[in-house]
């Protein structure tokens, strides 16, 4: 079978590379030698029917599950055994299917909490030595507004997160991820439960972020019809295996993909 070895130029072009990932639950093989490569600065889509192993793959890449075999390579570094928060520090951030905002904080505050290494977060000095963190905070607020206007939440900066709609909450999650310094964002079903108009708005933003800022997106989505036109590359999985990959049109018309969606 031979282990696939990541070559130099592959490492240059691809942010995430998985090599022969295997993950079992009891007797069931959830991931069966999965090899994927996520191109840098592009939007990659992952589709597949229920139980095909998509969520397991995302959990392995983001560090919430450890694989039995295989490797996960992020920016040329083997991160297979790295805990999730270490991956966050490297720039790999995932969002959840159900957004988890800080409900009583304003949109701006939600983004500001994501700032890394804030000197003003030390509770023993924050109240007394304000001058120590004011410059950092000013800079953070600037970045936060920059990001908010990018994701399209600028108008809402003063509103508590509890007043946002489902789609806006997903935008807020993206904003926090970028504030955190993420250059690679894995999203689990960003369009689930969001009305079509907002889905288009959300993906317009995602496209802009990837084109203009070079952010890499890896997106699981079921509502393929809505989002297919926005993505650059697609993977399809079934029964724990990658059954097709390529441009979205090619993958969506692949006979194995069509067959797998109808079940056995």
């Amino acid at each position, binding site marked *: 079978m031979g282990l696939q070895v990541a070559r130099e130029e592959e490492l240059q072009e691809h942010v995430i590379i998985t090599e022969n990932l295997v993950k079992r639950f009891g007797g069931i093989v959830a991931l069966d030698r999965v090899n994927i490569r996520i191109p840098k600065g592009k939007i990659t889509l992952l589709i597949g029917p229920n139980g095909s192993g998509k969520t397991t793959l995302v959990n392995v890449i983001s560090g919430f599950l450890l694989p039995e075999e295989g490797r996960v390579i992020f920016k040329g570094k083997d991160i297979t055994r790295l805990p999730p928060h270490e991956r966050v520090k490297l720039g790999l*951030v995932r969002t959840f299917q159900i957004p988890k905002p*800080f409900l*009583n904080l304003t949109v*701006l*505050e939600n983004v500001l909490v994501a700032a890394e290494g804030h000197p003003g*977060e030390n*509770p023993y000095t*924050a*109240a007394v030595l*304000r001058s120590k963190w004011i410059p950092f905070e000013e800079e953070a607020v600037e970045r936060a507004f920059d990001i908010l206007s990018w994701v399209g939440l600028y108008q809402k900066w003063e509103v508590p997160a509890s007043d946002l709609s489902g789609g806006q909450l997903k935008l807020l999650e993206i904003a926090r991820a970028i504030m955190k310094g993420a250059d690679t964002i894995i999203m689990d079903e960003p369009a689930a439960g969001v009305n079509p108009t907002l889905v288009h708005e959300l993906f317009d933003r995602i496209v802009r972020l990837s084109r203009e800022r070079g952010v890499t997106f890896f997106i699981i989505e079921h509502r393929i019809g809505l989002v297919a036109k926005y993505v650059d590359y697609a993977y399809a999985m079934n029964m724990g295996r990658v059954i097709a990959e390529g441009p979205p049109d090619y993958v969506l018309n692949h006979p194995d993909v069509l067959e797998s969606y109808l079940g056995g």
Partner: protein
Amino acid sequence: MVNLAVMAEQIISFIAVYYILSASLNMKAGMTGIPDFGQAMFFAVGGIVVGNLATRIAAVIAAPELGVTRGEAWKLVITQNTDFVARLNEILPHKPGLSIAMILFSLVIAMILGGLLGWLASYPALRLRGDYLAIMLLTASEGLRVLATYTVSIMGSTPTVGLTAPNFFGFTGNAPLWTSVFALIMALLTYVYMESFHNSPGGRLFRAVRDDEESAEALGKDVAKVRRDAMIIGSAFAALAGVVFSLNPWTTGSSIAAQSIFDRVFWTFWPWALMILGGMASNRGVGLATTIVVALLIGPIRLYKQDIARLFHVQAVGIDVGYFANALEYILLGVLILLVLLIRPRGIIPEPPSWTLKKDKIKEIARKYQA
């Protein structure tokens, strides 16, 4: 006859104690979401430090002038508390250095010990959530109350009688006035601190952890540390409230006893009521609620309960006036809490955002990025 100046001094003292205690609770429960139903035990630390530590040390230092050995002074100040403190009070007015040193000593040591106890209590706070944690802290406070009540070496006093602390403000010439001023200054400093902390990235982080721990963790925040810090700092302030209470004869009624400083109604449940009334995580709300409620309710009731009760002519139906006054406070507390929960669950001033920079400054930055 009601002496207005005295009344003002007394009420200000009560407001100060309650504000510091409620603000401390607000940091733990309102901002960080730790349901601290054991607030009384942190408060009691302040009482113990003043009653059993500062009092003894002052006695030991002043022993030669009182004609006893230092070893005797250490014991006598407890065993013959009233007499010995009376003698001490005669010479303390001439010793401003010692008095001030003892006040500062009480403040510093109590805050350190309070913080330490908060740090200990933060261990269950990291493992337990919600109502279980509330019960756990309540039980811990009750357990410490029993320990302190029956262990003379902790309280320095027998269970019910209590200790009288020396008058450390005698040197000012007008002790009642200056104890009240001292209490007021402590309360104002607490207010400034809490306001400043709320409007800092640290305050924002506390509130974020309260809203969603997992999300904070996912953003790389050390949630355990945040909860621990909130318990330490918050509890230190509770101990500070205990010191302000214990140094002040207006509030103690001249006696510090385990029964009174561990009282969970006075030092746990009233602060909860005040915090909920003011608005959780709303420092201004807590300050406002404390001022109004203490000035109009707690203060007058505690101080003039007999007079108030007489207004109701309850003797006519065979109800004891003193009992009625006590009952009145509880009924008012209960009804007040229920009304707030039903009518204004977010309090009189709902939680504000953390204005880390001036609002104008933020708006100025905002304008730059108007897409």
